[in-house]
């Protein structure tokens, strides 16, 4: 029981940390990382819910299946979001990494 508690709370904290980062940070990659951390947090709670210590019975397979599904979703969305953010960067003429117009960064880099 204590194991479930520990991991549930950890998952919740991961969710909260991710959420805060997602809103506060403006860098797209950081946002995507934050979303990934959030989803991991949710999965952790779910799996912890299903957890039964060894020898005390079977583990509930339904949450496992749900998490598997969820992981695949999160990977595909991550990939899409990454490609999208690259594309935004290319077209928007702003350095999303540093929040500056591209020209300035280019100057810095060539210097």
């Amino acid at each position, binding site marked *: 029981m204590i194991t479930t508690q520990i991991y549930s709370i950890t998952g919740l904290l991961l*969710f909260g940390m991710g*959420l805060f980062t*997602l809103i506060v940070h403006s860098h*797209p990659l950081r*946002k*995507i990382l934050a*979303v990934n951390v*959030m*989803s991991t947090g*949710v999965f952790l*709670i*779910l799996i912890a*819910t299903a957890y039964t210590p060894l020898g005390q019975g079977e583990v509930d397979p*339904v*949450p496992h299946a*749900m998490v598997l*599904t*969820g992981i695949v*979703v999160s990977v*595909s*969305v991550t990939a*899409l*979001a990454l490609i*999208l*953010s690259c*594309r*935004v960067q290319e*077209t*928007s*003429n702003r350095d999303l990494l540093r929040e500056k117009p591209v020209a300035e960064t280019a100057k810095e880099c060539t210097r």
Partner: protein
Amino acid sequence: MNVDNPTWMIIPILLPLTAGLLCFLFHRKTFAIVLSAVLANFMAACFLTGQLLTFGHMRYSMGGWQAPLGITLRTDGPAVLMLLMTGVTGLAITLYARGYFSFRIDDPGRTERHQHQQRYFWPLWMLLLSGLNGLFLSNDIFNLYITLEIIGISAASLAALSGKPAALLASFRYLLTSLLGSLTFLLGIVFLYKSCGVLDLDLLRNLTEHGPGVRAALALMSVGLLLKTALVPMHFWLPPAHANALAPVSAILSALVIKGSFYLLFRLWFEVFASAITTAALNVMGTLGSVAILWGAIQAIRQHRLKLMVAYSTVSQLGYLFIAFPLSRTADNAQVWSIVIFMAMAHACAKSAMFMSAGTIFLHFGHDRIRDLTGVRASLPITVFAYGIAGVTLMGLPPSGAFIAKWLLLSSALASSQWWWALVIVAGSVMAMIYVFRVISRFIVIPEGFSSQKLGYHSRLLEWPALALAMISLLLGLAAPWPLHILARGSHDLTQILPGGLP
């Protein structure tokens, strides 16, 4: 299969899905595939409606595994009405998209890019349609999460399709917001599963006790869905995403995608967890809805670009759906459902007609600055007419479907002496009048010495689908008894739900 076989309800899900896969696989004949899919989808929706009217609501267990083990689908009144709404709107949008892309492909400088857009539009749209239908029919909370993901991803991809920097940025925000929404929803599911141990909505509804776990789950799921529905403090992503997308995409996003998450939210509140809802929560929703109505309308009035204005009017119109929440305390369930359904259907038709018209205007004039759109009527009379009629629906004038919804809203607000909601509704309608007519008066006026722009040939598909949808939205009120009949017939009776497990 017999006509009373519940298996039919997979058709609106699997058919567009297959069509989407095929469209992606083959580059030829895609329109034929898509058109037959949307037609079949529409017919399936009609068939399911007929089935519902004849045999009552239906339940279908996937693979023969019943709840709680398997996933069930079900049809009831609201679900088939949403299916019908999607069917009709989807058909019109498909036709319009055909005209839209053909017109743009004929534009010599941009042929390749537009071919590319069209090629990816079809599969994304088909998969989105299948996700929506899946959402309306599903009766399993985790399955609903997946349909939400399908909708979210395809909608965000569609929003980015135009390739403009603004659209890409908006789409990125949209994707992240929708992702945040689904994650919050998923966290809610986790709480729910932990508290109840089942995923099937009927089984969840039968639970008599609602502990703090269920309440927390409901709160989380609601927040997630509200993010996707863009209720006011969470609406920041909507206007840029809807306004910068291609016209058929804007129509899809505004008309259907938002309704999907709203429908789910409403279903959770008023069907599944009806007994766990507190008055305070309802009032919060109503307040947010009121703010949405007023704020969205003010923003719409202030916009200089047509599509942004239409997008903000979506923010405003969504508020009406939420004002129904606090009124549910006094009105009966059927009445609240009919308010929401009428509003949603009327708004879906009207808003897609509006976006289509705006798109046609954009195509022909190359911009959508309201200031410079004087005398559009001379060039595009049907489009302007469609826009106007859709505007009448947004204002909630009779006999539109929105009028019926507003009538019911006002009626229950006055009956329960909650006159402040009535005030908001009335103010919202008057403000809607201002933003609708601000544009229309420019469109229809032809000042002296005005020379209308000569337009090249364009397909009828660019104008008539919008007009058809606008007319449907206007005349929906006259056909009000039918939706009501369907709603009444499809209401649940709880005795039919079997204890699950047996295949």
